[in-house]
């Protein structure tokens, strides 16, 4: 058996290397403390691969606070500033301002990437104001919201990004049939209302697409935002080996379509469905969090998904 250290030092044959679609080098180290099947950990790994460690991270209170490791450890091969829950947008603004004041090159091929890496609660709820400020002021940084659709680090409470019908610990399913009663907040639409330089959705099931978007965020001037769909087996009550499948189904059912916004233009990215989206039920039935839903609930959610999908297609047509 080869040790982890040996694996990280392995040289791939040139012909194999050529076929790789993602950078081989690892900058997210073994020993991090994510749960098995964690979509967020996978996402963080891709982000670190994309920038080869030449990025400064600001991470607010979220699962990644823990995943990155307790003092004196860090799983990231990049400088990391842990910050308060609601401050990601403001802290990356300050980091970017300091880099500019000190004459560092920000972004671009050889520049420094400044990255805010926050969960959906830290973005859609408590951090929305700081996010808005960051976007509106036009800082040269990238904000990534990894969306696992609830406050997972505190133990699975609903956020405004939790979908209709989902069980969480503060939207439980019981005799009175409580569950989440509000639709998922469209954070990406709020972001786009700021007319940022670049905004996109991405999914851990499509790393090449995600990588391309990360590279785009690096070359574009001004604020960039990516909403990354990141399944959470612990909170979604889903099997840990279904993370990728779930993320893929979320795209194929048009529950979480992949698209980009740049210079006022929308572009839907393949592999979003080009014909009829798959029935949502295929996605829902794999997750324990949706098991309390009635048939009617599922219809309500299905209808919402298709309505949002049609709206996105219209935008892409009108502003394509």
């Amino acid at each position: 058996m080869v040790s982890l250290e040996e694996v990280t030092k392995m040289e791939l044959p040139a012909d194999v290397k050529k076929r790789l679609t993602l950078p081989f080098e690892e900058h997210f180290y073994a020993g991090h403390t994510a749960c098995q099947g964690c979509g967020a950990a996978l996402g963080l790994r891709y982000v670190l691969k994309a920038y080869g460690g030449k990025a400064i991270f600001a991470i607010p209170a979220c699962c990644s606070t823990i995943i990155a490791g307790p003092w004196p450890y860090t799983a990231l091969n990049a400088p990391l500033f842990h910050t308060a829950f609601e401050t990601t947008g403001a802290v990356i603004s300050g980091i970017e301002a300091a880099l500019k004041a000190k004459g560092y090159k920000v972004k671009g091929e050889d520049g420094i990437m400044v990255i805010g890496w926050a969960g959906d609660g830290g973005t859609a709820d408590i951090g929305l104001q700081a996010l808005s400020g960051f976007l509106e002021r036009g800082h040269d940084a990238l904000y990534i919201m990894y969306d696992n659709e609830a406050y997972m680090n505190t133990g699975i409470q609903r956020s405004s990004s939790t979908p209709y019908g989902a069980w969480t610990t503060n939207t439980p399913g019981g005799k009175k049939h409580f569950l989440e009663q509000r639709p998922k907040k469209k954070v990406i639409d709020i972001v786009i209302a700021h007319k940022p330089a670049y905004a996109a959705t991405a999914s851990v099931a499509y790393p090449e697409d995600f990588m391309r978007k990360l590279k785009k965020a690096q070359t574009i001037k001004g604020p960039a935002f990516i909403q990354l769909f990141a399944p959470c087996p612990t909170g979604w009550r889903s099997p840990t080996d279904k993370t990728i499948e779930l993320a893929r189904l979320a795209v194929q059912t048009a529950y979480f379509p992949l698209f980009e916004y740049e210079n006022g233009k929308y572009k839907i990215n393949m592999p979003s469905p080009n014909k009829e989206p798959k029935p949502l039920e295929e996605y829902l039935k794999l997750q324990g969090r949706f098991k309390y839903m009635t048939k009617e609930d599922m219809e309500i959610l299905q209808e919402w998904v298709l309505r949002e999908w049609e709206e996105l297609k219209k935008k892409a047509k009108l502003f394509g």
Partner: protein
Amino acid sequence: MPKKVVSGNYAAAYAAKHARVEVVAAYPITPQTSIIEKIAEFIANGEVENLQYVPVESEHSAMAACIGASATGARAFTATSAQGLALMHEMLHWAAGARLPIVMVDVNRAMAPPWSVWDDQTDSLAQRDTGWMQFYAENNQEVYDGVLMAFKIAEHEKVNLPVMIVESAFILSHTYDVVDMPEQEEIDEFLPPRKPLYTLTDFENPFSVGALGTPADYYEFRYKIAGAMEEAKKVIKEVGREFGERFGRDYSQMIELYRTDDAEIVFMGMGSLMGTVKEAVDMLRSEGYKVGAAKVRWFRPFPKEELYELAKNVEGIAVLDRNFSFGQEGILFNEAKGVLYNTDARPIMKNYIVGLGGRDLTVNDVKAIAKNMKEIIEKDELDREVEWYHLKR
């Protein structure tokens, strides 16, 4: 030495400029706003280089952005008042915990409700336990000098903690006075560029700041901050002495003593009201009263030793608090009594709650307080421990 006639707020802005701050992130609030307006003007007029101005969307974000900037190695500055300071509270802890030498001016303003924009120290004193050093300025010159010294003290390798320079709403913030400002080259010699403890640009040796501290480690992190605060006392005195040698205004004493040598009664307080007190001391002296004034410049770290040295030689201390801790007493009074408990200094101490929400404290008020203190000392009996001096009856 060049002199300018400036408001307390402009004195703060000039000091930030002369300290060559690199990032200013701030949000408007009366009566602080003219500090950040002036700094924006410096940028618009091309009077500063390499200064990034971040007009954030709240005070919470102002402090968060300063924290991000300071952690990236920049010299960061902000200013606020009252509600804004209270909103920042969480991040004040963060700045100190991450050991970032940010300097902030707080223009003391009363907390609402009822709405008030006038002078009151409760806003800054409520931040007592955040790990920030606090300096209370008596006049515009001290605002200016305070900001310059604050960076040097905060950035000292043994300190690495943030400093709050506190000035009074309107009494200083919007009142014009002559302020001596040294030449830029002299200031540069006094305050060289910052040498950060760490910076997030260290890609060769990546690390994390603020990661989870378990019960096995958190305790020591707090102990280190406590130690840095103790060290800060020495650094404050050193820097205050150096400032005096270079610029002629000595700040080596954390408590400034005024005519206390043979004083029986000493008025103790902080900030601009001590100017009025000194005036009253002169008048009382000419009337035969043996009185003096003790202006507490630094509330954190608290100058315990200096207070003891003063207290052991006086009969009475009248503590004038322009602040109040509900359910207890004036905050400076509370601290001062606590400092003396384990010593042999036992002057009679009385707390006068004065000037809340901008109520004027006049020379005649201070004279009346002196008379009250004299009676107490003669009778050797405290009429009451805490007196709401101005109360309408």
